[in-house]
Structures are given as C-alpha cells and as structure tokens.
C-alpha cells in the first residue's frame, strides 16, 4: 500500500523518554506494530528534559505536530520528572490554545516500556489528528516554508 503523493504528509516530532516511551516505541517496532513514517522520534533521558523551547522550535522549523511521551505518573525512572513535565506541558499547551493554535497539535501521552501497542495506537491517532488539522500555519516561521 503506497501513499499517494498529493496526500498531506505532516512532520511530526515525538520526544520519548529513554526508560519507558522510547522502549515502548522499540517494543512497537519489534512487535511490528505499524504507525506512519511521519513520526520521527527524539530520545531524551526523561520527559522533564523537554524544554517548551524545543516544542516551539519544532513548530518554528515546520513541524505540524509535537508529541511528548514519558513514563506513567508514578513510574518515572527519576521518580518525579514526569510530574514536572506534566505541569510544564499543561501550561504550555494552554498558552498555545490561548494564542489560537489549534488544539491537538500538541499532545502528551504516558507510555510504558511494555506498551508497544499503546505507542503504536497513540501515534496512529496523533498522525490522524494532525492530518485532519492540516499544515501548521500559525506557529511556523515563514522563512522555513519553501
């Protein structure tokens, strides 16, 4: 099944914590649970390593969606990292919503190392959502748009 050229192919950045979600993505891989190639994963030690600037940077440079995956609350390898990430992202997402960025371009999902299925499902859903939202025009730098 090949993808038609005219179809909108979003650029999606997925930040995954090393201990749970990156491993969850590995499990999705070894279980051959497909999700669209639009998703590119960046490995970070913990969800709390993700600076809101990274997320805005991705949008600036042309990303259409950014998702952050970390260990489930309570299961953080570093005990508390995802709790900080949760507050940071909640506030950031709320701000993006406030300035008129479409809801759904950003997402946080807790995915454990054992949840390959959830990882794949989440990515499929997210890509679907971003496809329905279309190209990110509100947060990109025009200079990158050609």
């Amino acid at each position, binding site marked *: 099944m090949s993808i038609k050229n005219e179809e909108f192919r979003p650029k999606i950045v997925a930040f995954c914590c090393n201990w749970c979600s990156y491993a969850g993505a590995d499990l999705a891989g070894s279980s051959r649970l497909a999700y669209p190639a639009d998703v590119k994963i960046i490995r970070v030690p913990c969800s709390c390593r993700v600076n809101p600037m990274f997320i805005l940077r991705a949008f600036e440079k042309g990303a259409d969606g950014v998702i952050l995956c970390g260990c489930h609350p309570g299961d953080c390898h570093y005990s508390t990292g995802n709790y900080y990430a949760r507050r940071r992202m*909640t506030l950031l997402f709320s*701000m993006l919503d406030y300035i008129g960025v479409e809801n759904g371009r950003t997402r946080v999902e807790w995915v454990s190392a054992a949840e390959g299925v959830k990882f794949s499902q989440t990515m499929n859903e997210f890509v679907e959502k971003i496809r329905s939202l279309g190209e990110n025009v509100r947060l990109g730098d025009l200079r990158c748009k050609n």
Partner: protein
Amino acid sequence: MQELITRAKELLENGTVARVLGWKAGDLPYNPEPAYFTNAEELKDFVYNGFCGANLSKYMIEASKLEGKTLVCLKPCDTYSFNQLLKEHRVDREKAYIVGVGCKGKLNIEKVKSFGIKGIESVFGAEMTDNADTLTFQTIYGEKTCSYAEAMLERCHVCKGKEHVIYDELIGESKDTKDAERFAEVEKIEAMSPEEKFAFFQKELSKCIRCNACRNVCPACSCRKCVFDSTKFDSAQKANVDSFEEKMFHIIRAFHVAGRCTDCGECSRVCPQGIPLHLFNRKFIKDINELYGEFQAGADAETKGPLTNFTFDDAEPSIVANR
C-alpha cells in the same frame, strides 16, 4: 513626599543607609526617572507622584552589590517583586532598607495623550497630596482635563491591594484603585474561537519591535544572560520579521516567568507599541490558580513556585483540549 524626603535625609545622615533609591524629577512634568540620592542636596530633586510608576525592586539587584544599605522606595505591588527576587537569591535583604510608599494609582502618560492632550507644560492633581479625581493639564494648546482614574495604568485598575508584603517602614497613604476584574480580559480571549484568538494576538504581536523593553524592565527577567541573547539554544533574535520570532519570544518569556511573575504590569507599561503583554503572564497566573491552587508570586519569599512543585494527581495536559 516631604515626609519621605525628611526621613530619607535622616537615614542618610545617621548612617543607616548609604543611598536612597527613588525618583528624580524630570524635565517634563510627567517623566521622573529612577535615581540614586546620596545626600540632602541631591534629595532636592526627589519626587514621588502619580507618574512614578517604575518598579524599583529590580534595581536592587545591582544595589545589593554596593557598600552599605540602600533605602529603596517600594510601592505595594513592587514589594511582591522584591520578595520574589529575595526568594531567588537575587537581592540581599540585608542591603535593603525598604520604605513602603503609599500608592493612589499610577498614571499612564500614553493614556493621557490618547485623550488628545498634547503640548503639556504642567500637570495638576498628580501629587500624592492632591487626592484629586481630575487631572488638569496646562498645554500649549490650552487647559485640558481628564479623570485620574481613566488615566491610570491598566495594572492599577486590577490592583492586588495596597498592602506592602515586605518593608522596614511605611510612609504615606494609599487609596484603593481596583475597579476591574483581574482576569476579565483573559477570560474574554479564552472565550474566543481559535481564529479570533489567533487574529487578536497576531495583530498585537505584529506590532512588536523586539526592543526588549518588556524583558529588561521585568523584575522576574533578571537573568544575567537571557536565553534570547545566548548561544545555548541557537535561538535567533533581533530579527523582527516573518511572524514567528515574536511569538517564540513572548511565549517563552512568559513561560520563563510563569510562577514567578507577580503581575506587576511593568511589561505593559513600558511597551512602546502598547502591546498588552500582561495578557500572557496573567493567562499563566490564571491557569496556575485554577489548576494548582491560588498562587501569588512574591507574597512571601519561601513558598515553592508552582513550576518547581507538583502533586501526584495534577491535571493531565489533555485538560487544555477538554476545558
């Protein structure tokens, strides 16, 4: 004002303080500047009136490095900023002699001018002792008046209260100026459709000239080196072009001060383009209050800030889409 000058002289003379940080009369009736005074002679130029809007707490970062104590005049809202700086070890309590000065609302000369008042030669009604409801301007184009309240800075309409949260002594009376809801403007925007929100902020932010006045005046933006000036993030700066940079700058600036911003309103006061920058900070404050419990930065110098804290059952980020 006289009481303030007398007391300042006293403290300078008895050696309690080495200098006084207050406001010096400007060459126009409405532009006093922050200034240091070291003797009685210099204090002749000391003023404290309705145009002394500047928050002096940030100057205490530098003043904390000087020999001896600095008498600093802080309005009620400025004391929150001082507390916050204290919490962040940016100012030295031992180096400050805080005189909490009364406040009857501070004036916004841009507002006055927007009423068509120009060519101003003198102003009546802006002195602390005046207690005036009306400001009278002698101008080249004749006498003009406007209501004191209408000429106030936005922040004074949503005043946090006239209590000083930290001080060594208090001088001067205050007057309640709150006549609007702090979050009303934010709520108005929240109620808009995404398209309207985007149009609103696009219009406001397109005015930004990246002069950094908002950042440099902000007591919470006290970093030795701002991320937008450093190479640590490869974040381009200065190019006020093409839609994105201002957004990045203002969102990140608001985020960096989230949980630390006392809502002192200086950013909006100094913006040469009149961008209501407080709407960013106040949105974060509102969210923090609603999601993590009421929090007023600078109310004390000890409580953990909301972004360096958490509870096990905090709201998930998905709440944003579901609200």
